[in-house]
């Protein structure tokens, strides 16, 4: 015997794809065709083969023009399939693969007929993505528990400043701990004002950003600039992971990095596991999605939020000290809007640690690419390469907007009565 509800579910079987789905599939197909066009028109323009330098003097060559034709053909076929009947469950994988071959073809075109440091660029991508990973994780920790964190930028900047100041006076790692503590204090302020007084979370976030930007610039000009002893730490040297660093390509890219990079990867793995499998993860998700349900089950909603937001602050503080460690000193506005990019990475990565990692790596890659293409005299103005990740973010956010799912209660204060 079927219950009425089962019957109901049966009649709701799809009557076909909705307008929305059809439109999205069509847009995606058009994107493939545009990329194919670019590959065919532009990337076939340089004769000769590009030499990709790997580590240890090794290298390989790629004939730019034939590669471009192959890539263009592949993309055109994918676009055709997408337009004709959709790629179904292969959609995401195909898109990712298409992006990789497209970029590879771009590199070959840009480099031909010269050579360029391929592995160096990949390694640099990871370096550049590190602060974004920390920033995005700080955002995810907050948002998953229902607090919007627009203040990632301020927390990163505070981390950079505090680690420079305290690290100069004491030792580097004491500085990092101080950075984590002070950024956690700002995070506490965010949580306290948002929870205790229900101040709009976006306003508090901007307050923290403005305040930290102003205060660090003020102190930099008033104190640090006239006291160089307060602003100078050793830059961090890469640590080679025993054995693993000898793997070709992967070794120098992944296993010859600073402790910040290893920490970032470990934290992503830990949080991905913790969100899914632990009591803390389950409760955090519940509090961010449906705080009232959590409350009625005896979960202390606001305590969860305090804890997560403060932990997020510590993560951002740690990430912020990367900026100082990277160049050895603090300067005004050293974070240069990376906290806002991290916010975008949170959304592009769909509020998941692994997604944020991927997003951050893409941004890091384009940062590194901008540096490299600058040397390669391709004829593309560097400004356009510089814009690529931002435009790509817009495209991704526009393409996925309807399908992403933000934590429902994000940004809303919770009050049990």
């Amino acid at each position: 015997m079927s219950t009425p509800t089962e019957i109901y579910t049966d009649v709701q079987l799809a009557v076909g794809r909705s307008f929305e789905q059809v439109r999205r599939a069509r847009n995606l197909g058009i994107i493939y065709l545009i990329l194919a066009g670019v590959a065919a028109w532009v990337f076939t323009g340089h004769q000769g083969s590009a030499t990709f330098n790997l580590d240890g003097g090794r290298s390989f060559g790629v004939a730019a023009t034939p590669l471009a034709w192959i890539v263009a053909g592949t993309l055109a076929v994918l676009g055709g399939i997408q337009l004709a009947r959709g790629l179904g469950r292969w959609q995401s994988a195909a898109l990712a693969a298409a992006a990789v071959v497209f970029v590879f073809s771009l590199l070959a075109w840009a480099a031909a007929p010269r050579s360029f440091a391929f592995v160096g660029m990949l390694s640099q991508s990871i370096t550049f993505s590190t602060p974004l990973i920390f920033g995005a994780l700080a955002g995810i920790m907050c948002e998953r528990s229902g607090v919007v964190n627009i203040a990632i930028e301020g927390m990163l900047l505070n981390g950079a400043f505090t680690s420079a100041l305290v690290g100069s006076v004491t030792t580097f790692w004491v500085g990092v701990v101080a950075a984590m503590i002070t950024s956690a204090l700002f995070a506490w302020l965010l949580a306290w004002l948002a929870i205790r007084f229900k101040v709009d979370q976006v306003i508090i976030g901007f307050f923290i950003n403005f305040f930290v930007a102003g205060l660090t610039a003020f102190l930099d000009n008033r104190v640090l600039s006239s006291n160089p002893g307060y602003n100078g730490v050793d830059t961090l040297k890469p640590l080679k992971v025993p054995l693993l660093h000898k793997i070709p390509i992967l070794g120098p890219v992944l296993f010859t990095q600073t402790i910040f990079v290893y920490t970032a990867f470990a934290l992503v793995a830990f949080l991905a596991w913790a969100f899914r499998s632990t009591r803390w993860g389950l409760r955090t998700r519940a509090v961010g999605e449906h705080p009232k349900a959590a409350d009625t089950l005896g979960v202390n909603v606001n305590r969860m939020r305090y804890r997560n937001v403060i932990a997020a602050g510590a993560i951002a503080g740690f990430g912020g000290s990367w900026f100082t460690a990277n160049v050895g000193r603090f300067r005004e506005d050293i974070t240069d809007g990376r906290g806002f990019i991290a916010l975008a990475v949170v959304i592009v990565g769909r509020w998941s640690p692994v997604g944020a990692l991927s997003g951050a790596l893409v941004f890091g890659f384009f940062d590194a690419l901008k540096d490299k293409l600058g040397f390669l005299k391709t004829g593309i103005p560097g400004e356009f390469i510089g814009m690529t990740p931002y435009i790509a973010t817009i495209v991704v956010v526009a393409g996925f907007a309807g399908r992403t799912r933000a934590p429902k209660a994000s940004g809303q204060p919770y009050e049990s009565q």
Partner: protein
Amino acid sequence: MTAAIAPQSQAPDDHLHESPWIHRLSSLRLTSLAVLTALVLGAFIVALSDIDKVKHGDIGGMLTTVKDSYVALAKGAFGSWRGWSETITAATPLMFAGIAVALGFKAGLFNIGATGQMLAGGMAAVWVGFRFDLPAPIHVTLALLAAIIVGGAFGGIVGLLKARTGAHEVITTIMLNYVAAGLALWLLKTSEFQRPGRGDPVSKDIHTSAKLPSLFGFLDRSTLEIRAHTGFLLALAAVVLFWWLMKRSKLGFEFRTFGANADAARYAGMNPGRLTIGAMFMAGAFAGLAGGSEILGGVTQNHATTGLAGNVGFDAIAVALLGRSSPWGTAAAALLFGALKAGGDQMQVDTGVPVDLVLVIRALIVLFVAAPALTRIIWRLKDKGTEGGTPLFRGWGS
């Protein structure tokens, strides 16, 4: 019999009858106290960052430093014609851009992109300014129109993206700020824009016919130090226009409905897509005017650089927050921030205390205005204000 006794009808009757004037007075008092609190905290920061005196425990000396700084700040903002002029000069783009953000808030959109829109408007104005030769009133009008249209288009893209795909404006506006910066940098290196003989990104100068007249031109035409320009009058006109739009016009009613409750707007037959695009276009147009008036008013020495928007776009968010997105509030906040900026510059010159102090004070003002409860605790006030209201952020959904 119909008297409801549901617990959700929490409002006691006396509250319903409360006069709006009492409410406004108490809100004004809170705002003043917020400014005062921020200045006091700023004083602490100035005193404690005077490292040498702190080391010697010279409290008297620290107090002198604070006094000197704030006196210089006040003088720089209001102490002379030049002070007033600088205040007005700094307030002008903040007023335009503040409206750009406030209008977004009213329509439920968080416009972080005033920087990019301003840059777009400024680039358009400078191009019209150096490219054409026209009689003065026409030339300046056309340049302003170009700023409105290009700035508006830059904002409109955000609206279009949101209306068509649901892409959240917080992300798209941040990204478009970077895109605008990249485009401006590229344009300024093209032969069309770049000043002949220069390798750095600097545009040609606008023609004199494209300049906005000086505001205090009647005082002494040779005094270069009086920078205030008639763009300020346009900014005031923009405030009045914004007021009319929100309080008197049909479109403003639609914006407000959409901003307060998008579902109700749809229910009432309003077109959410058109309103989103319209609001973002208008916001972009106001921000574009901020860029245009900076260029045409001569604040940027009659040419464009990539830094022409400066931090105005972000400061405008603080302006709109402080002014609670109301027309007069935004105007007052822009003037206050302009005064702080002008005074801060003078303070740096006179006492060596960095102008960045002003950023800290601004941030604190925004905090204490947004969190009246905090101000009440500090000043031990008892009155109950009306907190909350429509939140600025309504989640990441579209």
